[in-house]
């Protein structure tokens, strides 16, 4: 497997495809920035670059809160980008405003997740589907009505449904209505934000078939946002995996599913329950939850949960179980650092009473009581304990990083090209000095 680094952004853009319809370059979307008191922004999308080719379906997957919806909305300028470019046919749409922006929006539409809340209950189906036409002043009212009726037929509804209200329709039919509305202005690019997540499997299959038909008929380009990976595998040509505002891996669907590169993709794929009770596949269970995007970890965003984290040279021989506990200690310390003490608790602590924080001794007992800890680890732990007892979590964490940290926390990884040229993964392990994630997973988890 060839593994080359893609060093600078310049490389990425020269890499970009001729037939790219949309090129996203170093896109960042931060929320809550520059308030009166400054404050730390939520880094919902943090430096993302990729291309979407004309006529393809690009899947965007990840856990909730990883920024996939924000990314989709930023592409459509429903959110303002903090930095970076979104090039559509060479025009940076993040800089558009006024009538130019309106023109662009004709071209790019969105289907929302929940068909219950994305249709106005007080409008008839006809009015809902006609609204984009009205807003953009499309031809004459008579032609608009005609167009709406055609659209309803296109998405598999009846023309007579024009005068009905949303509550008279089932979930699948409502999603069809949403799709009809999306198509009314003949866009080139459609963002599908979890279009089938709220539907039952059999209905879900109908909508997926419809989306595929429409793509073939109108030559649409889709950005398909989803957390259901089996749906993504079925419908998408390429897939981007997001975690904490970063694209961890992007590549052709079949290759990515059959031969994932990034440890996060490995874990995500192994977490999908397979509809086959005889499957004996080993599951990689990730511990904990994704970190708060307001305080992303330093280095690699996935380093706090990564099952293949690079371990420092001198502790390479440590037991896997001990590493799990060490990681738990670190996560507890960083949580405590951010948990605020109420006045009452400060007083309790001052007079020597128990606070709601169990003592550090208890924590240690829980974590390491039943394990044999080698002396060099113990000495580091003792130092951490001293700082933690004084409620100096910052210092405790610094000691932790000195002792147990590695390149994963220290430096942000680069994109490495794995497999054929367009399959990229964001992980230190692709560097030649380390073993590949797949090999490490084999050793640690099987």
């Amino acid at each position, binding site marked *: 497997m060839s593994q080359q680094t893609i060093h600078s952004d310049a490389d990425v853009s020269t890499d970009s495809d001729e037939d790219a319809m949309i090129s996203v370059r170093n896109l960042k979307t931060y929320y809550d920035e520059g308030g009166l008191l400054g404050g730390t922004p939520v880094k919902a999308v943090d430096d993302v670059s990729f291309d979407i080719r004309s006529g393809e379906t690009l899947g965007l997957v990840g856990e909730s809160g990883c920024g996939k919806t924000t990314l989709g909305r930023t592409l459509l300028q429903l959110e303002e980008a903090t930095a970076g470019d979104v090039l559509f046919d060479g025009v940076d749409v993040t800089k558009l405003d006024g009538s130019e922006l309106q023109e662009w929006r004709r071209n790019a539409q969105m289907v929302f997740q929940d068909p219950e809340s994305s249709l106005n209950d007080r409008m008839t189906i006809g009015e809902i589907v006609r609204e984009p036409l009205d807003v953009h002043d499309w031809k004459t009212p008579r032609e608009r009505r005609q167009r709406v009726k055609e659209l309803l037929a296109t998405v598999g509804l009846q023309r007579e449904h024009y005068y009905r209200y949303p509550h008279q329709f089932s979930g699948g039919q409502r999603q069809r209505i949403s799709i009809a509305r999306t198509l009314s202005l003949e866009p080139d690019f459609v963002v599908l934000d979890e279009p089938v997540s709220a539907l039952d499997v*059999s209905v879900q*299959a109908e909508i997926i078939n419809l989306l595929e038909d429409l793509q073939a008929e109108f030559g649409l380009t889709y950005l398909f946002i989803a957390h259901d990976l089996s749906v993504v595998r*079925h419908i998408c040509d390429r897939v981007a995996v997001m975690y904490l505002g970063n694209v961890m891996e992007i590549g052709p669907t079949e290759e990515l599913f059959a031969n994932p590169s990034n440890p996060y993709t490995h874990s995500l794929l192994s*977490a999908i329950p397979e509809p086959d*009770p005889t499957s004996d596949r080993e599951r990689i269970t990730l*511990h904990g*939850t994704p970190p708060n995007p307001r305080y992303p970890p330093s280095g690699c965003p996935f380093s706090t949960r990564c099952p293949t984290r690079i371990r420092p040279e001198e502790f390479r021989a440590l037991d896997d179980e001990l590493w799990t506990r060490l990681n738990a200690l670190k996560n*507890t310390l960083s949580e*405590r650092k951010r948990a605020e003490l109420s006045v009452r608790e400060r007083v309790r602590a001052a007079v020597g009473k128990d606070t709601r924080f169990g003592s550090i001794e208890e924590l240690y007992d829980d974590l390491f009581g039943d394990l044999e800890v080698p002396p060099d680890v113990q000495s580091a732990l003792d130092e951490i304990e001293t700082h933690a007892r004084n409620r100096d979590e910052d210092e405790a964490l610094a000691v932790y990083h000195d002792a147990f940290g590695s390149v994963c926390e220290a430096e942000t990884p680069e994109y490495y090209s794995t497999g054929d040229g367009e399959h990229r993964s964001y992980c230190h392990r692709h560097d030649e000095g380390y073993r590949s994630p797949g090999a490490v997973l084999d050793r640690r988890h099987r």
Partner: protein
Amino acid sequence: MMSLERSPRTTAERDEPILEVRNLQTAFFTEKETIRAVDDVSFDIRPGETVGIVGESGSGKSVTARSIMGLVDSPGRILQGSSIRFGHVETVREYAEAFPNRTVDLESLRAEYDPNDFFARAAVDVRPTDLGYERADDVPLEDVVAAGYGDALGVGDGDCVFVTDGSPESPSSIADGFVELTRLDGEAQRRMRGGRIAMVFQDPLTSLNPVYTVGNQIKEALRLHQGLRGEAATREAAELLEDVGIPDARRRVNEYPHQFSGGMRQRAVIAMALACEPELLICDEPTTALDVTIQAQILDLLAELQEERDLAMMFITHDMGVIAEISHRVNVMYAGEVVETAGVNDLFADPKHPYTRGLLQSIPGRQEGDRLQTIEGNVPTPNQPATHCRFAPRCPKAFADCEAVHPASVPVEEGATDHTAACLLYPEELPTAEAVARHRRRADTETRGDTE
């Protein structure tokens, strides 16, 4: 070979069922119509076993769960003839002790009970077929009283504890019996709900009260069911949180639900459900609102807890992948009825009912060819007693008789008692005409009067 792989637990004869659901019918009476949300459902759950219930939305999964919990609110009602028996012996003893006036010794009744004579009585408005038997001779006394037709035998209105082996006077001697859940109310209901049977709901945020700390809410269950208070309760609550894998539990106990992440909240809800060491845990789509990685954690946790505590679980979901992962037996529901029941390996390897097949084929990745298979149409709302197959309008294999005969649940082939389907095509070894005739006979004897 396949059925051996899973675990020895799947063997049906391991234990007596802890929960027996028989002919459960729950209907909602609105001004416009009567919706028969659950229509004649029967299944068992054994200790240490997970029974999965799958089906599309509107198929009656959640109403089944709520009927067991006694959470069906007006205008909904469990119809007479339904029976949900909780057969945990210790519980029966405890109930016999706590509610001597509501306890009935079935042994002493048995002398007066002659099935033929009983069903011939004018005052008795139930036929043996209503209880799932073809002949009056076959109907055991238990079924009659549990279904609520015991008045003629002198069973009082409020009686809910039935002892079949042992004497109600000395509760410790009771060796067999059951508590009839459909007849519970008041204190008896409260002890069962939460104490013996607990439930985990889909959305953890709506099952937690936002203005109380998580610890507070766990302590409420401990106080009500185990009388724990103060420091002891707090300690117990923290321990429970630790058991469900929440780190730093001492601190977490005093935090509010909004300070927990989605997966943690569901863990906290599970801790609450386990607070009183229930025998049966009902999970109503507990992972639907969670991400796959968190779902994997919760499924692991539930499997672990089941192992530790020998919990019986009823697991409702519409995700076939989750069902394959967690359950031992599966009931497939459609429009209020169980259309297929099988061990999990059989169901996935060899689904019989056309609906189950359709459901499995519509999962991306399992179909042949590029297009996804779909099941045309929608789940109907059952508002009449079934006189034909409710799936017939959507069924790819439907034939004329499907519109005329209501299929009964039969073994899919000779001797396969563990795998049943409600479809005119089965039993498989019979020619279709004969199979239809058999279903017709069952349906005819079952001309159910208005059960209202």
